[in-house]
Structure formats: structure tokens, C-alpha cells
């Protein structure tokens, strides 16, 4: 069993099956049973298939690279030594999918675990090369490490749950639908045929795109599927496109994402222009001469094995930044380019130390991060996410939990080795701001789905911050756990909405006894998201991930006192999270029903919807646990830790000297204890406050609101972000558009109309001339010919003898004429 060839096959199949179902539904959807009912089963079968394949790949991976608890500290111990010691292993650490020596995996699996820490085991290669020109090579390839495998399992699993859930939730679309939110001009409501199959078609495309991002072997492919995710999310969010709000939300999401993607494009250009490759891992290409050439990937360029995988500005960027000097040298050594290349190579080190190219690297990182900001709704581009609630609830669940927003975090994690401390700081700051703003907005939101949406945003902020402060595995670990409990929460909210036919929490309450399963599972989800647990003993999944984040933030702020604000942001975020999550739960399920009409008609959801809830709840509980054998998702992630990020890194030229502490340090006693206690305290405080206000009613929320009226309104208006963007971008855009259209209508159209009018006048004159003069001439000619013919006809008497006469006379005349001319010529 050879992972190098088996994993790409399994994961590639798992990736392509949704595409197949998408194509199938796209072409034969309407014919799949009545109203395309079977489209659901097709899509579900597809995603289940890919889930099974992913699980198979998971098993393959585990059997090839067993997970042990020792990996962590072993890596911490001799990070640099391992880095130095396994410099050559770096080359082998990312074997090419094509030419990988089989022995390598054995090597990776057998000789010490330090190998994992120093150089992650990763398989990469290309299935198909779209285009190869010059140094640019666009290819469909794979980059598979434990992170990829884990993400595949998570994504396909959650997608499966959501497919099952949606097949029940979307049953309205099976027959003609009357959309009560859309008023047609003719009066009444929109009445349209169901779009059941189309929903699942978009869903399959969505899964395909997401898996494509996960398996992508190079940034170009990532970008392609990045956009595919965008467009499929546009399909899904705008599923009820007849609703103005839905279509607007879809466009908003797409456009805002485009803004981020613009930055991403810049990053891509910087990377490609300077380094000439977009592949993550090293690879080989066959050049024109026919022999294979080693092509270093981005990772080994930025963190060359020679330098112990320490981050350094790659030569390409240095030369690129110092292009003038390079050109001078080449001009000076025009004679033999080899000498020029040697001299340049000799001086690159000096230039690097002189600081050439670090800006380029910074811009590349920030650019890529811009894309992530758009996708995973970071400040300042988070405004689209709450509006995306316009899509059907399963879509919200998918988008917010596992796929779209996860994509950004995943990309940062995947791209981690290339990010300099400055970029990391930027990421951390952005994440902090995001988590705080989102949490504060979530405090006052009354729409249950909006609360969850903003909680998602703040949780994403958590992840970004964690990544920014160097908590690589912490951030990604939180991504995984969050995927579980956030999808759980969404599906629960969906079930609630399904029961109450409303999103407003103020109309709910006391639903716990009506729909106990939903209430219980949602309680589990809330506990998980606030990281509830018995300190140092046991906890839900969120407990572990959130503690890791707190600890890493604490160690970072202790390492750079100037940025200790980050730690406080995380702590406050934890408090706020606890508060608004339980506010949500209390308002929805506890207490007396505020609207009896709703409460009476409410009922537990069908099993097809409850089933996924239970499964997700269980996972939300156990996702963070470590098995006795030392297996845990965190340790599994550790296998994929990028080379050289295990050690403490220093650097930074923009915000002064920065220190990114090694993640292992955050497990030191002091920091660990402090972080755990802080987390527990803040969470408990949040829960208690929420209970006091909404359960025991010690304090009236309205009184608090009126007390802090300006703050409340400020928060209720979501910090006026939409208004701000409206003023900053939308209105000017509209103004410019209006100006342009005015110019078009008033000037250009007038001009064109004038030209057209004059042309018509000219044409009229021309037509008159044609009709009266030209045609007149033609007709005159014709009639003249006709009359002449009529006259000449009389000449043709039909009398042979006269014809003979004519001939003879003509001949004689010709003779005479010719003879006269003859004489004349003689005379002359």
C-alpha cells in the first residue's frame, strides 16, 4: 500500500465525484424523478462516496504515518537540529507524486518522529498541466499532508450531514412554490416551479470547489477553485433570487469577495513575477532539452533546507527588488552570462541582509491574506457574511462552518511558511479586530441566524489571530472543532426556524420542552463554542482549541509586550462569546414562551433533520479529545506543521523587532495554567451574566439598553459598517455611475441620435434622387430600348429575300468603304 500513489488517487476521486454529480444533475436534473426528487439522492450519494474515500485516505495516512503524542515535544526539543540534520530530508520530505521513490514514505514513517516536525511528510504532484510557458506552469495538482486529509474528512463529513439535512429541509422545492416574500407587480405573491435539483446541483459544485481548494497543489489552482467557491456561493446565497434581499446578498458576497481576491491576485503576481513558480512543493519538470529539472517550490524557496528551514527572503525576490543592480552587472558581464550569474549569486546574500526584497515578500503575504480576509469574512470585509443568511439555512451552515469561511483560514495555514512575522502581526491584528467587532454586534442581534453569523465571524477572528500569533496548529485545530459545533448550531437554528417559521428570538422562548432534541444538541453546541470544560481534566472540543489559542496569544504578548492587547482581545472575546451564545439559548429555549401562537404550533423536527444534529453534537463533544494511544486531531495536525515553524522565529522590519514564539512554548506550565484559568473565568462570567439577564431576569435587558442607548444603537447598527461602506463606496459608485449614464444619455446618445437623424435626412434625399433621377434614367433607357426595339421589329419582316438584300447591300457597302479607306491610306 503506497500512500504516494494511493492518496492522490483516493482524494482525487473524492474530489471529483461531486463534480460528476454536479454534471449529472446539471444535464439530467429535471428528469430525475418527479420534480427532480432524485437529485438529492444523487448528490448525497456522491458526497457520501467522497466521504468514504476520504475516510479511506485517512486510514491510509494513519497506517503510513501513525500519530503519537510524542511528536509535539520531540519537535520542540531539537527543532533547529532536526532542521539542520534533515536538510536533505527536506527535498525528500515533499516527494513528487510522479517520481516519488517508494522508499521515501518508509523513510518518513520509520526514522524518528523528529523528521515529522522538521520536515512535514507531504505528497505533491500534477495530474494535468493546463499551460506551461516560460517559467509559468499552471497545472492541476495535489499537495497532500495530514492537514489535507483531515480537511477532506471534515468537509465531506459536514457536507454529508448537510446534504441529508437539506434533502428534508428543501422539500418545499419539490412542487410549485409560492414565495410569500416576493410581491409581483400584478399583485399577489410570486408563484414559481420548484428548484429542488438546482439546489443540490449548486451544492455539489460547492463541495467540488471546496475540495479543490483543499487538495490544490499550487496557488494558481487554489485561485481557480477560490473563484469557483465564490460563484457557487453566489448560486446558493441567491437561491431565492426572486427576493431582492437574496439577490443583493449574493451580489454583495461575491463583490466583497472580489475585493479580497484582487489583493490575492496582487500576491500571486508578486510571487510569480519574483519566484516564477506558484507550486507549494518542489517538483520536477521536463524542459525542452528533454531532461528533468528540479524545480524548487515556494516553501523550499522561502525556507531553504540549507538554512535549516529558517525564513529568508528568496533570492528571486532579492534580485527582483534590486533589478537595477542585476541589470548593471549583467550589462557589465555581457560577454559570458555564467560569470554574471555567479557574481550575482555571490552578492545576493549582501543584498538580502541589506533588506532588498523583504517588502516584496511582505506584499505577497499580505496579498494572499487579503484573499483570505474576503473569503473568511475578516475585518473590514466581513459585512457579506450576515447577509449571506438570505440563503437557505443548510447553505448558511455549509458556508459558515466548513467550507467557504474555512477556506480562508485553511489557505493561511497552508501558506504559513511564507508569511513573515510582520505579515503574521497584520493577520493577528485583523483577526483581533474582527473577533471583537463581531462579538459586540452579536450581543444585540435578535435574529437567531445573525447571532450565529456574527459568532462565526468572531470565531474566524479567533483563528486568524491564533495563526497570526504563531499558533499554527491552534488556529487550524480551532477551525476543525469550530466546523463541528458551528454547523451543529446552524442546523439547530434551522430546525428552530423550521418549527417557528421566524428568525426573531424575541418571539421565541420556552421551546425546550417542545423540541427537546434540538434544545439539547444546541446546548451542547453552545457549551462547545464557549470552550466549556473542567480545567485540566476534560472538556468539549472548544475547550482544547480555545485554550490553545489563549495560551499562544499569552505567550506572544509576553514575548512582545507591545502587542499584549491581542491577549486581552482574545480574553474579552471569550467572555462576549459566552454571553451572547447563552443569551441566544436562554431567549430561545428557556423561560416562558413569549408568543404562544408560535410555541403551540412549534414541533420537533423530523428525524432526517435531528439525526445529523445528534451526530454533530457527539462530534462537537469528542473532537478535541486525545485517545490513550496519543492520537488526537491536534497531534495529527502537528504532522503537517510546516518545516521551520516549530522553532521560535524572530524578525520584522515594519513594526519593529517581533518574536513569534514557538507553539510548543505555549504548553509550558505557567502560560498554560494562566490561559486555562483565564478562559474558564471569562466563559463562566459570560454565562452567568447571560443567565442573570435572560434567565433569572435580575437585570432587565431593556434597562441596560436604555442605559447605554448610544452604544446599543451603535452596536445594533453593526457599527454602521454597512452605512459607512454605503457612504464610502456604494454612493460614490452610484454617483459616478449616474454621472456616466447621464453623460451617456445626455451627450453621447444625443450626439448619436443627431447623427442618425441627419443620416436619415441625407438618406431621404438620396432616396428621392434614386427614385426620381436614377430610376427615371434607368426607366427612360429601358423604355427607349423598348420603343426602339418595337420600331426595329418592323425591320424584321420575316422575308428571306429582303434579308438577302440587306446582306448584299451591306457587303457592297463594306467593299466600297474599304476600298475608299484603302485609297486614303495610299494617299496618306
Amino acid at each position, binding site marked *: 500500500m503506497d500512500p504516494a500513489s494511493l492518496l492522490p488517487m483516493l482524494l482525487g476521486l473524492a474530489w471529483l465525484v461531486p463534480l460528476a454529480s454536479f454534471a449529472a444533475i446539471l444535464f439530467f436534473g429535471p428528469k430525475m424523478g418527479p420534480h427532480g426528487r432524485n437529485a438529492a439522492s444523487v448528490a448525497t450519494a456522491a458526497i457520501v462516496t467522497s466521504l468514504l474515500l476520504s475516510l479511506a485516505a485517512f486510514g491510509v495516512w494513519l497506517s503510513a504515518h501513525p500519530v503519537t503524542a510524542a511528536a509535539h515535544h520531540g519537535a520542540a526539543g531539537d527543532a533547529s537540529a532536526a532542521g539542520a540534520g534533515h536538510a536533505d530530508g527536506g527535498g525528500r520530505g515533499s516527494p513528487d507524486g510522479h517520481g516519488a521513490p517508494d522508499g521515501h514514505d518508509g523513510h518518513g514513517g520509520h526514522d524518528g518522529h523528529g523528521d515529522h516536525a522538521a520536515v512535514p511528510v507531504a505528497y505533491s504532484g500534477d495530474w494535468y498541466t493546463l499551460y506551461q510557458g516560460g517559467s509559468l506552469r499552471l497545472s492541476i495538482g495535489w499537495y497532500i499532508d495530514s492537514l489535507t486529509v483531515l480537511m477532506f474528512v471534515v468537509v465531506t463529513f459536514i457536507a454529508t450531514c448537510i446534504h441529508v439535512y437539506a434533502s428534508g429541509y428543501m422539500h418545499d422545492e419539490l412542487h410549485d412554490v409560492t414565495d410569500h416574500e416576493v410581491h409581483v407587480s400584478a399583485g399577489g405573491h410570486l408563484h414559481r416551479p420548484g428548484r429542488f435539483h438546482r439546489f443540490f446541483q449548486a451544492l455539489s459544485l460547492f463541495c467540488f470547489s471546496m475540495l479543490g481548494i483543499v487538495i490544490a497543489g499550487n496557488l494558481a489552482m487554489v485561485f481557480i477553485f477560490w473563484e469557483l467557491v465564490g460563484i457557487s456561493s453566489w448560486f446558493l446565497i441567491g437561491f431565492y433570487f426572486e427576493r431582492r434581499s437574496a439577490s443583493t446578498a449574493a451580489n454583495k458576497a461575491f463583490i466583497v469577495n472580489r475585493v479580497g481576491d484582487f489583493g490575492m491576485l496582487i500576491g500571486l503576481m508578486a510571487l510569480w513575477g519574483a519566484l516564477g513558480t506558484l507550486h507549494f512543493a518542489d517538483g520536477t519538470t521536463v524542459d525542452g532539452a528533454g531532461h528533468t529539472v528540479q524545480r524548487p517550490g515556494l516553501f523550499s524557496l522561502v525556507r531553504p533546507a540549507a538554512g535549516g528551514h529558517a525564513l529568508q527572503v528568496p533570492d528571486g525576490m532579492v534580485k527582483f527588488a534590486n533589478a537595477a543592480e542585476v541589470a548593471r552587472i549583467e550589462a557589465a558581464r555581457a560577454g559570458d552570462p555564467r560569470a554574471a550569474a555567479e557574481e550575482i549569486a555571490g552578492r545576493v546574500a549582501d543584498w538580502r541582509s541589506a533588506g532588498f526584497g523583504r517588502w516584496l515578500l511582505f506584499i505577497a503575504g499580505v496579498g494572499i491574506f487579503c484573499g483570505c480576509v474576503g473569503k473568511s469574512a475578516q475585518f473590514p470585509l466581513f459585512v457579506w457574511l450576515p447577509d449571506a443568511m438570505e440563503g437557505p439555512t443548510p447553505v448558511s451552515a455549509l458556508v459558515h462552518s466548513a467550507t467557504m469561511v474555512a477556506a480562508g483560514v485553511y489557505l493561511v495555514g497552508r501558506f504559513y511558511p511564507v508569511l513573515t512575522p510582520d505579515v503574521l502581526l497584520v493577520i493577528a491584528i485583523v483577526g483581533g479586530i474582527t473577533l471583537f467587532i463581531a462579538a459586540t454586534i452579536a450581543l444585540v442581534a435578535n435574529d437567531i441566524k445573525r447571532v450565529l453569523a456574527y459568532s462565526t465571524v468572531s470565531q474566524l477572528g479567533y483563528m486568524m489571530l491564533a495563526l497570526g500569533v504563531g499558533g499554527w496548529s491552534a488556529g487550524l485545530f480551532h477551525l476543525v472543532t469550530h466546523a463541528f459545533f458551528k454547523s451543529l448550531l446552524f442546523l439547530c437554528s434551522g430546525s428552530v426556524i423550521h418549527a417557528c417559521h421566524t428568525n426573531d428570538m424575541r418571539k421565541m422562548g420556552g421551546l425546550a420542552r417542545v423540541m427537546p432534541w434540538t434544545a439539547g444538541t444546541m446546548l451542547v453546541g453552545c457549551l462547545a463554542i464557549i470552550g466549556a470544560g473542567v480545567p485540566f481534566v476534560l472538556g468539549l472540543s472548544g475547550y482544547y482549541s480555545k485554550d490553545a489559542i489563549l495560551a499562544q496569544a499569552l505567550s506572544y504578548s509576553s514575548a512582545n509586550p507591545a502587542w499584549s492587547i491581542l491577549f486581552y482581545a482574545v480574553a474579552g472575546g471569550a467572555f462576549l462569546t459566552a454571553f451572547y451564545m447563552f443569551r441566544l439559548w436562554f431567549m430561545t429555549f428557556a423561560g416562558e414562551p413569549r408568543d404562544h401562537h408560535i410555541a403551540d404550533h412549534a414541533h420537533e423536527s423530523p428525524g432526517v433533520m435531528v439525526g445529523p444534529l445528534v451526530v454533530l453534537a457527539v462530534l462537537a463533544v469528542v473532537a478535541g479529545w486525545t485517545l490513550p494511544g496519543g492520537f488526537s486531531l491536534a497531534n495529527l495536525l502537528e504532522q503537517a506543521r510546516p518545516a521551520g515553524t516549530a522553532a521560535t522565529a524572530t524578525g520584522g522590519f515594519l513594526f519593529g523587532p517581533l518574536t513569534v514564539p514557538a507553539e510548543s512554548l505555549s504548553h509550558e506550565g505557567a502560560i498554560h495554567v494562566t490561559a486555562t484559568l483565564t478562559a474558564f473565568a471569562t466563559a463562566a462570567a459570560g454565562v452567568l451574566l447571560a443567565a442573570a439577564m435572560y434567565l433569572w431576569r435580575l437585570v432587565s435587558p431593556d434597562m441596560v439598553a436604555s442605559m447605554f442607548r448610544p452604544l446599543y444603537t451603535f452596536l445594533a447598527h453593526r457599527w454602521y459598517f454597512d452605512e459607512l461602506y454605503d457612504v464610502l463606496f456604494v454612493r460614490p459608485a452610484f454617483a459616478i455611475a449616474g454621472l456616466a449614464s447621464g453623460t451617456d444619455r445626455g451627450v453621447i446618445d444625443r450626439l448619436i441620435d443627431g447623427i442618425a437623424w441627419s443620416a436619415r435626412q441625407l438618406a431621404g434625399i438620396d432616396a428621392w434622387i434614386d427614385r426620381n433621377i436614377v430610376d427615371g434614367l*434607368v426607366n427612360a433607357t*429601358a423604355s427607349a430600348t*423598348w420603343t426602339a426595339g418595337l420600331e426595329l421589329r418592323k425591320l424584321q419582316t420575316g422575308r428571306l*429575300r429582303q434579308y438577302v438584300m440587306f446582306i448584299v447591300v451591306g457587303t457592297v457597302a463594306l467593299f*466600297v468603304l474599304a476600298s475608299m479607306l484603302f485609297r486614303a491610306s495610299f494617299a496618306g
Partner: protein
Amino acid sequence: MMPLLAPPLAAINWHSVLFLLFAAAACSCAVAVVLADNVVRMAFYLVLSLAATAGLFFLAGAEFVGAMQLMIYVGGTLVLLVFGVMLTAQAPFVSIKTSAGDRVLAGMVGAALLAVLLQAAFRVESWRRPALAAEPAPTATPIGMALLGVRVDAPADGTPPDAVRSGYLLPFEIVSVHLLVVLVGAAYLARAKRRRTPRSIDVAASTVVPDAAAGAWERPGAAGVRR
């Protein structure tokens, strides 16, 4: 001893005499053809004229052409004669009179043409100079060879010795095929029709009066104006 005859007659040239005889016969018979009204007589005069022409050919040393003339032309004219007799033996068409005006007009035109031709004939001086020196060669064999595509006759003066002179094999074949086609076509045209042939009255009735037809037709000019 006294010569038996007076010198003048001693200068008589038989060739010229015979030429004059044949020429006179040919011309007078041709004129007679023109002047005669009776078709059969016309045919008769024509035969004489053609025969006399054949004699002229013999005098010119073209025996083969002369014999041909006798055989084919006279044979063809014989058929002509037969038709004339068949068609006109019974009354009305024996002689179709032509109006005197036509006669005068034709005479004038004919005179003009004759004048032109005669002055053309006498214009070239070398044509008036006889060259009786040449020993006339029998032409049947060369003509036969020429029709077979081989030229064995002496090239005319002035033609370069190595000039390629084409035979007449292809024209010969073409003429043969042409004759065949003519035979078939004539038989087809003259075959007895099954349908009753219309009488002259019907023909006259069915003839289109052109002016009426012209009135019926639409003038394109008018059409253009109407548009």
C-alpha cells in the same frame, strides 16, 4: 507551198476556246436560272451551269474536283429537281411570280455586287498574267493522300522547304460524320407526320399579329414609373 489556212486562225488557242465555251454555258445558264420562272426549268438550267462549271474545273486541271462536282452537285441537284417536280407538278406553284419592283431592285443590287466583284477580280495585275508554263500534275492521288493526312503534292513557292503542311484527315472525318448526321436529320425532318397537317387557313389564323401583341405587352418604363 501556200498554207491552207489564213494566219489569223492559226493563232486559235483551244484552251481559251473551250474555256470560253464552258464559261459562256455556265454564266448564261446561271442567268437563265435567275430569269426562269418555272422551277423545273430553273433546275435544268442549274444542272447545265453546274456541268459547265465542272468542265471549267477540268480545264483548270482539277479533274477530281470536276468529277466530284458532276457526281455530288449534279446528284444533289437531281434530288432538287425531283422535289421541284413533285411539289410543283400540280398546278399552282409551277411559277410563283415576283413583283417587277423586286426584280428591278434585285437587278440593281446584283449589278452593284457584280461591279464590286469584277473590279476586285481585275485589280490584281498578277491575276491577269497567265502562267501556262507549269506542267499540270494529276491531282487525284495527292488529294487522296491529303485526305489520308499525308501531303505529297509540291509545296507552293515561297513556303519554307521544312514547313509542316497539315493533311485533311480530321476535316475528312468531320465531314463524314456531318454527312451522316445530315442524313439522319433530313430523314427525321421529312418523315411523314402522323397528325393531320394543318391547312394554310389554320396557319393564317394562328399567326400572331405582332402589333396587337405589342399592345398586350407591358412597357417596363411604365412599370418603373408606377413603382
